[in-house]
């Protein structure tokens, strides 16, 4: 092939890629403007959902971090809550006047600030990510999943039981909130739990920073190494990518973002206790990543929005209409007993995990790449097409014969 033709094709390829990325940038910018104008819209139209959006944004932070581990590097972590709790408690230890470490004068004064402590929590969670990941990442995928689950149980248990340091089941209160930002004039932006607008923008800023860092990571040499390891570890290793340290980077970075989210959460709720951090949180975040589109960060954000808004808004708003529907049909006879009576007192929020479990199963069976898949990841999750098998033996024999003929 002539040199010029190769050059032309290469240029065309890069031109196409550039226009694609411009296109995406435009979409992101439009989305960003809409989202950042939301508080004004909310106040103007009197929707009153801003308070519910704050936990959803925190879920989004967690989901983006988990996506590094599960989506990019292909490591199933079902104990992600461990790093969330480490970040949250680190923030509490560093800033609450009730904490064991502050009472004993271990924490220097400048660290007791929300922002500084946040950085420390971030680093601390990453360190724990390395400590937990280093011995376990040699394990095969499904064993690794169970080990992460084990840590996801041990860490909250530790915070419950080591009551002398952690305050036990009652946890730690009076965690520092971000210091108020003074404005010209007498006013200032304060961050108490009812200041939804300022928390919304704080989380938006933190989320955008995370999004930026993660997308840059994905396109970096490390990001490509993650994908290579995910697709075929042995092939990647023989091309010179060190599997364990590459996975460790993914694990530690994923952990660090969970710690980050934990420290922000800690500052928002201002008191942490172990019961807030159960296995179900790990699964909630995992279903966001899987439903949205494993490996595709915008898909994951959509997943966080869908699941988070069901969790925090829809399940609460839809309960009264369903209850009243139940009351109107309470005298309808059905073969399954009185459905109307069941519906009239039913709380939709108790169905959350039924629905999330169902979502996990359905996505795996019907659309393994999630609702907004990354093309590459979807193809992998479909399985190897060359070895596709049917349910019955005869058909498989015919299929194999046909393949042999082709070869």
């Amino acid at each position, binding site marked *: 092939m002539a040199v010029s033709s190769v050059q032309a094709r290469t240029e065309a390829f890069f031109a196409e890629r550039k226009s694609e990325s411009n296109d995406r940038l435009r979409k992101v910018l439009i989305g960003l403007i809409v989202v950042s104008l939301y508080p004004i819209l909310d106040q103007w139209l009197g929707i009153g959902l801003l308070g519910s959006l704050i936990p959803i944004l925190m879920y989004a932070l967690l989901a983006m971090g988990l996506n590094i581990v599960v989506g990019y590097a292909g490591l199933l972590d079902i104990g992600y809550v461990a790093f969330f709790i480490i970040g949250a408690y680190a923030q509490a230890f560093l800033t609450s006047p009730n904490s064991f470490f502050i009472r004993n004068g271990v924490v220097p004064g400048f660290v007791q600030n929300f922002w500084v402590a946040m950085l420390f929590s971030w680093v601390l969670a990453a360190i724990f990510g390395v400590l937990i990941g280093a011995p376990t990442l040699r394990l095969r*995928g499904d064993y690794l999943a*169970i080990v992460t689950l*084990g840590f996801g149980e041990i860490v909250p248990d530790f915070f419950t039981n080591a009551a002398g340091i952690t305050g036990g089941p009652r946890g730690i209160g009076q965690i520092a909130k971000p210091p108020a930002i003074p404005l010209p004039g007498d006013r200032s932006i304060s961050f108490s739990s009812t200041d939804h607008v300022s928390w919304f923008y704080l989380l938006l800023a933190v989320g955008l920073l995370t999004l930026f860092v993660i997308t840059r990571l994905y396109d970096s040499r490390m990001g490509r190494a993650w994908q290579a390891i995910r697709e075929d570890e042995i092939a990647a290793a023989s091309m010179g990518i060190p599997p364990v340290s590459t996975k460790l980077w993914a694990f530690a970075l994923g952990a660090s973002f969970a710690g980050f989210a934990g420290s922000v959460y800690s500052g928002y709720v201002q008191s942490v206790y172990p019961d807030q951090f159960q296995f179900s949180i790990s699964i909630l975040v995992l*279903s966001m990543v899987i439903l949205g589109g494993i490996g595709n960060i915008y898909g994951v954000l959509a997943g966080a929005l869908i699941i988070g808004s069901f969790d925090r808004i829809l399940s609460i708003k839809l309960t009264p209409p369903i209850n009243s529907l139940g009351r109107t049909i309470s005298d309808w006879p059905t073969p399954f007993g009185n459905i109307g009576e069941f519906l009239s007192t039913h709380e939709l929020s108790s169905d959350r995990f039924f629905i999330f479990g169902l979502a996990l199963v359905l996505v795996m069976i019907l659309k393994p790449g999630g609702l907004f898949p990354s093309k590459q990841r979807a193809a992998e999750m479909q399985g190897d097409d060359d070895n596709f098998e049917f349910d019955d033996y005869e058909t498989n024999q015919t299929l194999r014969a046909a393949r042999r003929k082709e070869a």
Partner: protein
Amino acid sequence: MNWTLFFQMVIIGIATGSLIALIALGYTLVYGIVELINFAHGEVFMLGAFFAGSFIGVTGVTSENSTLQIVGTLLLALVASMVFCAVLNALIDRVAYRRLRNAPRLAPLIAAIGFSFILQNVAIYWKGPNPLIAPKILPKEFTQYNILKRWDIFGGYFDDKFIRFMAKDVMVIAITIPLLIGMSWFVYHTRIGTAMRATAQDREAAALMGIDINRTIQVAFLVGGALAGAAGMVALIYNSSARFNMGFQYGLFAFTAAVLGGIGNLFGAVVGGLLIGLIWAMSDGWMPTVVPGWGAQWTNTVIFSILVLVLIFRPAGLFGKATTEKV
């Protein structure tokens, strides 16, 4: 050192351990053949306990009835909850896992986690979130009856004040051992059991020898489910209550037992189950008297640490051979 308490905990540990062994066998059977950690297995066990409870409730037999009626009802409930769980387990496989046979390993595992949450909620819809109290079918004397006292072989040392070996402990063991013998006969001495072992060794070669792979896998799910059902019924009677979230703890403990014994190894699962049962009972009852500051709240941490340590340092378990990943 309190030796009386120690032996008491050994007895409790063996009873709970044999329960865990029954559940662990379900994990190990399925993992041996399809290499899937059936995360929903603990929930199948829990639903077995719920089913047995409502079955006994429907028959209306209580401790007032004659011994024959009580024993008959218990046996019927055992068989019924075994059938129920076997069908449930095989149904989950048919609906979800079978479609994911050729997908990467993580896909069926994620589906199994999903099913575990679905089944927990099914249990809540069915019986509510509060603990289900077992029907009062066993006479009170039976559950509190100390067999050692009756025999008096140790010169009165083992009476009510000291070691109790309750009739209900005997019941657990009397149900578990025949089931274990029956299962090992099934796996090692029947045609379909041989097919299961062949499939576990090399699925493709087994298929070429004319073994129907899907049917064999289905049988593994049926057998595993049946054992979980039996364990569910026994756990309900033994603990005299069941709750929608009990499957998580029992399931993970049983999985730890399976890993400890070498996953895929049936004998290992039984030994692992007994070991985990003993560790559980010791940590709950005996350790607090030996280690200052110890309490039952550390049991979960201990068992999960065992799980993590075994997986890291000896992934093939106590009785397994180390294997290398095939390309």
